[in-house]
Each structure stands twice: as structure tokens, then as C-alpha cells.
């Protein structure tokens, strides 16, 4: 299936229903499609063409490799419902156009779920169950089976022989570069599936959650939206609006993680967030292995405290 490197571009409803494992489009002859079936590909705004007249609001600060060129996306605004995009922005290909490594996404998601897990399941072993120190009846002569204690695992009320033992920790750490690659793969997947939206700033006109919901429905962003900004301060209006909503969430850029990106359908980033993410994620491609923890000073890493 991987040999046929034909990208199944979902441009029509019929192609969307074909299994992704076959490269050729063969539909069953008795296929009946409902007339009100909506094609999501026609609803979202297509990526900007090469000759777009809108201004380039942000260029890539980091060096782009010679054999790759930066991606371009629209920069939108959250002010008005039907506002046109304000301009274009460049995205670094090593963060937003990485090879789609689903196995890395799976391992990072599994790690995120399990490294915090402490299972408190505990059962008592035959020595810990109350009682059972004395031999219940003599070895020979009673006619019954021979037993040494009433709390052995074959007895009702006895101990569990191979049960869960005490709080067990499932803590493990994936290598730093694997976790960073998980972030880049998740961002690239969002970009490739047109679920990534760039916004100039997070200033919403009203603290009304309905405004946000209407905006999201009008622009066909999806069922759930994750809004990311650099820094800890967010506009009050946005905080009030998202506090009332379950499917629209706000996080700072340092809190961006693979699980949140997979859980929410759309990802909304600001221009400052793009600079921050590209800076932090691309540093891992050219750094040395740590001589001492990175929290201690290095000559080119600016420490805040």
C-alpha cells in the first residue's frame, strides 16, 4: 500500500468514501448517496495561492534548509464573524512539514497517558489476610483434603496468589528528542489536514461565548478548538468566553502537548506563538547532548532567573 505514492486528495464527496488502501477509485454500482451530504473540503478555505496579493506579515526567523521552502498560511482575525484574512505568514518546514510519523505520535500519546499513572490496586497475599495461622484439621485421618491454612489461595476468602501488589508506578520517560518530534509531527499533521489556523491576536470583541461558537461554525473550524498564545496573560474577554465553553480551550505555548492537539479538532496559534514554537523546537535539531542540565546556564541560552 505504501508503494503507490498517490495522495488521495479529498476534493469530492465520492472520493472521500473510498478506502485509503486502494489507489484506484472504484465505486460500487449500487451506491446511493443522500442529497444533503456535505463535503467538508468545499467549506474550508483552500491554502493561499502562490500569487496572493495579501502582505506577508511574518517571515521565518530561523534558517530554512536549502532544499526546502517555507509554507504559507492565512493570518485571520477573531474580531468579526465574516472577516477576510489579514495577510499571510511563513511557517518553517522542519516544524510544520515534517514526515508524518504516526508511530511517534502513538508513543508520545501513550507516554503522556501513562507516565503519570499510579495504580493503587492492591490485594492481600495469603500471609496478609487476617487469620490462617493454624492448620485447620490434622493431616491424616479426618477424611478431608489436607490443608495448612484457611487463607491459602484455593480457599474461599483466602489470599490472592498473583494479584496486583500495592501502588505500582508506570513512570517512564521517552527521550527528549522523541517528545519534541512528537510535537512537530502533531503540528505538521494539523497543518496538512487544514486544521491549523493562525490569528494575529486573541482580542475578542465580547465576552459572550456565543460569538466564539458562531465564528467557529461560520468558518467551519470543527467541533473543538485549542487556542494557544505565548505568555501567561490572556485578554479578559477570551478567558470569560472560553470558561463557559467545554470544547474551546486556551493554553499557554509552554503547555502545548500532543494529547491536547489530538483531542481538539482545530488549533489556533498567534504569530508570537509561531516564533516561540519554531525557536524552541528547532533548537533541538542542532543542540549538543547536555553536559549538565539545561536549567543551568549555557553561553547561548538566556536564563530568565
Amino acid at each position, binding site marked *: 500500500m505504501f508503494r503507490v505514492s498517490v495522495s488521495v486528495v479529498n476534493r469530492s464527496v465520492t472520493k472521500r468514501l473510498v478506502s485509503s488502501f486502494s489507489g484506484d477509485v472504484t465505486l460500487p454500482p449500487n451506491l446511493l448517496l443522500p442529497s444533503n451530504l456535505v463535503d467538508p473540503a468545499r467549506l474550508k478555505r483552500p491554502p493561499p495561492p502562490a500569487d496572493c496579493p495579501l502582505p506577508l506579515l511574518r517571515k521565518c526567523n530561523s534558517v530554512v534548509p536549502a*532544499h526546502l521552502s517555507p509554507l504559507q498560511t492565512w493570518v485571520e482575525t477573531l474580531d468579526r464573524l465574516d472577516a477576510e484574512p489579514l495577510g499571510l505568514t511563513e511557517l518553517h518546514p522542519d516544524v510544520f512539514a515534517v*514526515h508524518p510519523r504516526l508511530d511517534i505520535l502513538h508513543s508520545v500519546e501513550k507516554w503522556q497517558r501513562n507516565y503519570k499513572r499510579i495504580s493503587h490496586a492492591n490485594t492481600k497475599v495469603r500471609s496478609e489476610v487476617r487469620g490462617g495461622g493454624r492448620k485447620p484439621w490434622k493431616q491424616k485421618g479426618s477424611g478431608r483434603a489436607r490443608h495448612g491454612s484457611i487463607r491459602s489461595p484455593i480457599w474461599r476468602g483466602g489470599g490472592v496468589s498473583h494479584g496486583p501488589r500495592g501502588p505500582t508506578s508506570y513512570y517512564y520517560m521517552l527521550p527528549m528528542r522523541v517528545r519534541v518530534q512528537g510535537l512537530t509531527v502533531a503540528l505538521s499533521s494539523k497543518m496538512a489536514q487544514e486544521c491549523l489556523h493562525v490569528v494575529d491576536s486573541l482580542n475578542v470583541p465580547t465576552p459572550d461565548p456565543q460569538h466564539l461558537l458562531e465564528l467557529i461554525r461560520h468558518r467551519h473550524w470543527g467541533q473543538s478548538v485549542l487556542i494557544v498564545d505565548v505568555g501567561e496573560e490572556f485578554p479578559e474577554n477570551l478567558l470569560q468566553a472560553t470558561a463557559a465553553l467545554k470544547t474551546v480551550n486556551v493554553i499557554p505555548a509552554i503547555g502545548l502537548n500532543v494529547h491536547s492537539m489530538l483531542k481538539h479538532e482545530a488549533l489556533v496559534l498567534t504569530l508570537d506563538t509561531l516564533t516561540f514554537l519554531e525557536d524552541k523546537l528547532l533548537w533541538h535539531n*542542532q543542540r549538543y547532548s547536555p553536559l549538565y542540565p539545561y536549567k543551568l*546556564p549555557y553561553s547561548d541560552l538566556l536564563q530568565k532567573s
Partner: protein
Amino acid sequence: MSPCFGVRAAVLRGALRGPVVLHSRTQSGHAAAAGPGLASHPAVVESTEEYAFVERLIPPSRVPAPPKHAGAAPSGWIPPAESPPDLPYMIRRSRMHNIPVYTDLTHGNRKMTLVRKVEGDIWALEKHVKEYLKEVTGKELPTQVNEVTMTLKVKGHYDLELKEWLASRGF
């Protein structure tokens, strides 16, 4: 207890009196030397200029770009071409600016050569690698393409040949 405490106290007092006496002697000496303008003892001055000697020892966190060489460096390192070669695939350099071809030995006798960091059409690379190694060794070597991780494995240790070939191609 009390006599030894008394003795200790006397010893302490003697010890304290000594430096105090010296201090007063030096103080009077300073005053005499400095003249009538300096009445108070000079304050301790904090100097931050010597910290430069510590700062120059702190290592950088990023691997630096190699200096420009015309052709090969004296160690044998070949820089990548200025512009990427016109091929359907691209092989990036490692973070230490080397060609990502590695040897592997498993089960004590299973030799393999691994080409990592491939981008683009990996099957075209596999075809070219097979043709090149057929010319060099005369054997049809089994290869394995992993499209998920974008790596190529070749049976046998051919890292030196592949590194030379890739360097000559301009990767």
C-alpha cells in the same frame, strides 16, 4: 567546670584583644600614612570585571557551523555542496555535519549498513544505491526500505563506499 570556663574565657579575651590591638595599630598606621583627608576605613569594592574569565568557560549549547573549506578538510571531512543536488531524494547531514551512514552488527554476525535522514523518493535512492554497489562489489545486495522512518538498510558493511559516493553526489 567553672575554673576551665574561666580559663577558656580568659583565653578568648586574650585572643580577642590581640587582633583588636593590631587593628588599632594598623588603623592608626593607615591614618598616619593617608594623611588628614581619609578619616574612615575604605569600603569593600565589588568588582564584576573578573567574571569574564568564568563566562568564557561556559560552553555553548548549539553545534557551531563548520569553517569554510575549499574541497576536503585535512581530516578528510567533505563539506556538503552549496546548493542541494538535483535528485528526487535528499539526504541531510547529521547535527555534527557528517553523512548519516552507519554500520550495524546484530547476532554477532549480521552486518548491515544503515542510511538515515532520507527525504523525498526513497525508492529512487534504493535503485541508485543498488546500481552503485553492483558496480563496486559485483553483487546484488539485498536492501530494505522503511518508508515510515525513511531509512535504507543494505546487507553488509559498505559505509565507506556509500559515504564517498554520497559526498561525491553533493549531499
